[in-house]
Protein backbone atom coordinates (compact mmCIF):
# COMPACT_ATOMS: atom_id res chain seq x y z
CA UNK A 1 0.00 0.00 0.00
CA UNK A 2 1.10 3.57 -0.54
CA UNK A 3 1.87 5.95 2.30
CA UNK A 4 -0.89 8.60 2.51
CA UNK A 5 1.75 11.16 3.50
CA UNK A 6 4.72 10.60 1.15
CA UNK A 7 3.43 7.96 -1.28
CA UNK A 8 6.18 5.56 -0.18
CA UNK A 9 5.58 1.83 -0.32
CA UNK A 10 4.28 0.37 2.98
CA UNK A 11 4.44 -3.38 3.31
CA UNK A 12 1.33 -4.66 5.13
CA UNK A 13 1.97 -8.26 6.27
CA UNK A 14 -0.57 -10.82 5.09
CA UNK A 15 -1.37 -11.85 8.68
CA UNK A 16 -1.78 -8.27 9.95
CA UNK A 17 -5.08 -7.49 11.63
CA UNK A 18 -7.23 -4.40 11.89
CA UNK A 19 -5.93 -2.13 14.64
CA UNK A 20 -2.26 -2.93 14.06
CA UNK A 21 0.22 -0.16 13.40
CA UNK A 22 2.48 -0.06 10.34
CA UNK A 23 5.21 2.47 9.65
CA UNK A 24 6.29 3.99 6.37
CA UNK A 25 9.94 3.07 5.73
CA UNK A 26 10.44 6.31 3.78
CA UNK A 27 9.00 9.04 6.00
CA UNK A 28 8.53 7.14 9.29
CA UNK A 29 4.87 8.06 9.72
CA UNK A 30 2.73 5.55 11.63
CA UNK A 31 -0.60 4.32 10.33
CA UNK A 32 -3.31 2.10 11.73
CA UNK A 33 -4.75 -0.65 9.58
CA UNK A 34 -8.48 -0.15 9.37
CA UNK A 35 -11.33 -1.60 7.40
CA UNK A 36 -13.89 0.53 5.63
CA UNK A 37 -16.69 -0.86 3.48
CA UNK A 38 -14.94 -4.22 3.43
CA UNK A 39 -11.61 -2.93 2.13
CA UNK A 40 -8.40 -2.33 4.04
CA UNK A 41 -7.09 1.21 4.36
CA UNK A 42 -4.46 3.10 6.32
CA UNK A 43 -5.44 5.88 8.68
CA UNK A 44 -3.19 8.16 10.69
CA UNK A 45 -2.21 6.44 13.95
CA UNK A 46 -3.03 8.14 17.22
CA UNK A 47 -0.09 9.74 18.97
CA UNK A 48 0.93 8.50 22.40
CA UNK A 49 -1.15 10.20 25.08
CA UNK A 50 -0.35 10.98 28.69
CA UNK A 51 -2.77 8.26 29.77
CA UNK A 52 -1.18 5.52 27.68
CA UNK A 53 -0.05 2.55 29.71
CA UNK A 54 2.52 -0.13 29.19
Amino acid at each position, binding site marked *: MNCPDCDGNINVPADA*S*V*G*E*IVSCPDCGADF*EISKKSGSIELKK*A*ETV*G*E*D*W*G*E
Partner: protein
Amino acid sequence: MSKISIVFDRVRAEEKMLQKEAEQLGHDTTSIDAKITRFSTESKKTDYDFGNVVLERCVSYFRGIHFTACLEFLDIPVINTFEVANNCGNKMLTSLLLSKHKVPTPKTYFSFSAEAARENLDKVGYPLVIKPIIGSWGRSVVPLKDKDTVDALFEIREFTDGPHDRIFYLQEMVKRPPRDLRAIIV
Protein backbone atom coordinates in the same frame (compact mmCIF):
# COMPACT_ATOMS: atom_id res chain seq x y z
CA MET B 1 -17.22 -22.98 25.49
CA SER B 2 -17.60 -19.27 26.16
CA LYS B 3 -17.31 -16.31 23.88
CA ILE B 4 -14.67 -13.75 24.78
CA SER B 5 -14.47 -10.25 23.33
CA ILE B 6 -11.17 -8.40 23.33
CA VAL B 7 -11.68 -4.63 23.25
CA PHE B 8 -8.70 -2.73 21.84
CA ASP B 9 -7.71 0.67 20.60
CA ARG B 10 -4.38 -0.51 19.21
CA VAL B 11 -3.59 -4.14 18.49
CA ARG B 12 -0.27 -5.18 20.00
CA ALA B 13 1.43 -8.56 20.27
CA GLU B 14 -0.26 -9.07 23.67
CA GLU B 15 -3.77 -8.85 22.22
CA LYS B 16 -2.83 -11.35 19.49
CA MET B 17 -1.36 -13.73 22.08
CA LEU B 18 -4.48 -13.47 24.27
CA GLN B 19 -6.70 -14.23 21.31
CA LYS B 20 -4.56 -17.17 20.21
CA GLU B 21 -4.43 -18.63 23.73
CA ALA B 22 -8.19 -18.26 24.23
CA GLU B 23 -8.84 -20.00 20.93
CA GLN B 24 -6.48 -22.83 21.83
CA LEU B 25 -8.47 -23.27 25.05
CA GLY B 26 -11.55 -23.69 22.90
CA HIS B 27 -13.14 -20.27 23.40
CA ASP B 28 -14.74 -18.31 20.64
CA THR B 29 -13.04 -14.90 20.48
CA THR B 30 -13.70 -11.65 18.73
CA SER B 31 -11.80 -8.34 18.64
CA ILE B 32 -13.70 -5.09 19.02
CA ASP B 33 -12.25 -1.68 18.17
CA ALA B 34 -13.22 0.72 20.95
CA LYS B 35 -12.70 3.68 18.66
CA ILE B 36 -15.59 2.80 16.38
CA THR B 37 -18.02 1.44 19.00
CA ARG B 38 -20.92 3.59 20.12
CA PHE B 39 -23.18 3.52 23.20
CA SER B 40 -26.03 5.61 24.51
CA THR B 41 -28.25 5.77 27.56
CA GLU B 42 -30.78 3.89 25.44
CA SER B 43 -28.35 1.04 24.61
CA LYS B 44 -29.35 -2.48 25.55
CA LYS B 45 -27.26 -5.60 25.99
CA THR B 46 -29.10 -7.21 23.09
CA ASP B 47 -27.91 -4.42 20.75
CA TYR B 48 -24.40 -5.88 20.88
CA ASP B 49 -22.62 -9.21 20.74
CA PHE B 50 -19.93 -8.95 23.38
CA GLY B 51 -20.22 -12.61 24.36
CA ASN B 52 -19.88 -13.89 27.91
CA VAL B 53 -17.00 -11.72 29.04
CA VAL B 54 -14.96 -8.78 27.75
CA LEU B 55 -11.25 -8.26 28.17
CA GLU B 56 -10.74 -4.51 28.15
CA ARG B 57 -7.30 -3.94 26.59
CA CYS B 58 -7.26 -0.29 25.52
CA VAL B 59 -3.85 1.36 25.69
CA SER B 60 -5.54 4.62 26.65
CA TYR B 61 -6.54 4.48 30.31
CA PHE B 62 -9.35 7.01 30.00
CA ARG B 63 -10.80 5.38 26.90
CA GLY B 64 -10.68 1.99 28.57
CA ILE B 65 -12.25 2.98 31.84
CA HIS B 66 -15.12 4.85 30.16
CA PHE B 67 -15.69 1.97 27.78
CA THR B 68 -15.82 -0.34 30.80
CA ALA B 69 -18.43 1.89 32.43
CA CYS B 70 -20.61 1.54 29.32
CA LEU B 71 -20.21 -2.24 29.31
CA GLU B 72 -21.10 -2.51 32.99
CA PHE B 73 -24.13 -0.28 32.33
CA LEU B 74 -25.23 -3.08 29.98
CA ASP B 75 -24.49 -5.70 32.70
CA ILE B 76 -21.68 -7.22 30.63
CA PRO B 77 -18.87 -8.75 32.74
CA VAL B 78 -15.57 -6.94 32.10
CA ILE B 79 -12.00 -7.72 33.09
CA ASN B 80 -10.94 -5.49 34.76
CA THR B 81 -14.05 -4.12 36.42
CA PHE B 82 -14.55 -0.36 36.56
CA GLU B 83 -13.83 -0.36 40.30
CA VAL B 84 -10.53 -2.20 39.89
CA ALA B 85 -9.41 -0.09 36.93
CA ASN B 86 -10.40 3.12 38.70
CA ASN B 87 -8.60 2.24 41.92
CA CYS B 88 -5.48 0.85 40.26
CA GLY B 89 -5.22 3.49 37.55
CA ASN B 90 -5.13 6.39 39.99
CA LYS B 91 -2.09 6.52 42.25
CA MET B 92 -3.85 8.58 44.90
CA LEU B 93 -6.75 6.13 45.20
CA THR B 94 -4.28 3.23 45.26
CA SER B 95 -2.19 4.83 48.02
CA LEU B 96 -5.28 5.57 50.11
CA LEU B 97 -6.55 1.99 49.76
CA LEU B 98 -3.16 0.45 50.58
CA SER B 99 -2.80 2.63 53.66
CA LYS B 100 -6.37 2.01 54.79
CA HIS B 101 -5.76 -1.74 54.64
CA LYS B 102 -2.44 -1.48 56.51
CA VAL B 103 -0.29 -2.39 53.51
CA PRO B 104 3.12 -0.76 54.06
CA THR B 105 3.62 1.98 51.49
CA PRO B 106 5.89 5.02 51.18
CA LYS B 107 4.56 8.07 53.01
CA THR B 108 2.56 10.07 50.50
CA TYR B 109 1.26 13.62 50.77
CA PHE B 110 -1.72 14.98 48.88
CA SER B 111 -2.59 18.59 48.22
CA PHE B 112 -4.83 20.37 45.78
CA SER B 113 -2.98 23.53 44.88
CA ALA B 114 0.64 24.50 44.25
CA GLU B 115 0.56 26.64 47.38
CA ALA B 116 -0.52 23.74 49.61
CA ALA B 117 2.03 21.46 47.93
CA ARG B 118 4.80 23.94 48.80
CA GLU B 119 3.58 23.91 52.41
CA ASN B 120 3.82 20.11 52.37
CA LEU B 121 7.40 20.36 51.09
CA ASP B 122 8.32 23.00 53.68
CA LYS B 123 6.91 20.85 56.45
CA VAL B 124 8.26 17.45 55.35
CA GLY B 125 11.49 18.61 53.70
CA TYR B 126 13.38 17.54 50.59
CA PRO B 127 13.59 15.25 48.73
CA LEU B 128 10.08 14.21 47.80
CA VAL B 129 8.99 12.66 44.50
CA ILE B 130 6.14 14.25 42.57
CA LYS B 131 4.03 11.91 40.43
CA PRO B 132 1.06 12.46 38.17
CA ILE B 133 -1.89 10.63 39.72
CA ILE B 134 -2.62 8.97 36.38
CA GLY B 135 0.10 7.67 34.08
CA SER B 136 2.64 4.90 33.73
CA TRP B 137 6.16 4.16 32.59
CA GLY B 138 7.44 6.71 35.09
CA ARG B 139 6.39 9.55 32.84
CA SER B 140 6.51 12.92 34.63
CA VAL B 141 7.79 11.32 37.83
CA VAL B 142 10.35 13.81 39.14
CA PRO B 143 12.43 13.89 42.31
CA LEU B 144 12.10 17.28 44.00
CA LYS B 145 15.47 17.87 45.60
CA ASP B 146 15.42 21.64 45.99
CA LYS B 147 13.25 24.74 45.74
CA ASP B 148 14.52 25.63 42.24
CA THR B 149 13.25 22.32 40.85
CA VAL B 150 9.90 22.86 42.57
CA ASP B 151 9.55 26.39 41.15
CA ALA B 152 10.32 25.16 37.61
CA LEU B 153 8.03 22.14 37.76
CA PHE B 154 5.10 23.92 39.36
CA GLU B 155 5.39 26.67 36.72
CA ILE B 156 5.17 24.04 33.97
CA ARG B 157 2.07 22.63 35.65
CA GLU B 158 0.48 26.08 35.63
CA PHE B 159 1.05 26.30 31.86
CA THR B 160 -0.12 22.80 30.97
CA ASP B 161 -3.05 23.16 33.39
CA GLY B 162 -4.56 19.73 32.84
CA PRO B 163 -7.25 18.68 35.32
CA HIS B 164 -4.79 16.36 37.04
CA ASP B 165 -2.14 19.07 37.34
CA ARG B 166 -4.19 20.46 40.22
CA ILE B 167 -3.68 17.33 42.28
CA PHE B 168 -0.24 17.25 43.89
CA TYR B 169 0.92 13.75 44.81
CA LEU B 170 4.20 13.93 46.69
CA GLN B 171 5.88 10.79 47.92
CA GLU B 172 8.75 9.90 50.18
CA MET B 173 11.82 9.02 48.11
CA VAL B 174 12.67 5.35 48.56
CA LYS B 175 16.32 4.46 49.00
CA ARG B 176 16.91 1.50 46.74
CA PRO B 177 19.73 -0.45 45.15
CA PRO B 178 20.53 0.48 41.54
CA ARG B 179 17.92 -1.81 40.04
CA ASP B 180 14.20 -1.74 39.34
CA LEU B 181 12.04 -2.88 42.27
CA ARG B 182 8.43 -3.90 41.73
CA ALA B 183 5.86 -5.02 44.28
CA ILE B 184 2.70 -6.88 43.35
CA ILE B 185 -0.13 -6.81 45.88
CA VAL B 186 -2.98 -9.29 45.62
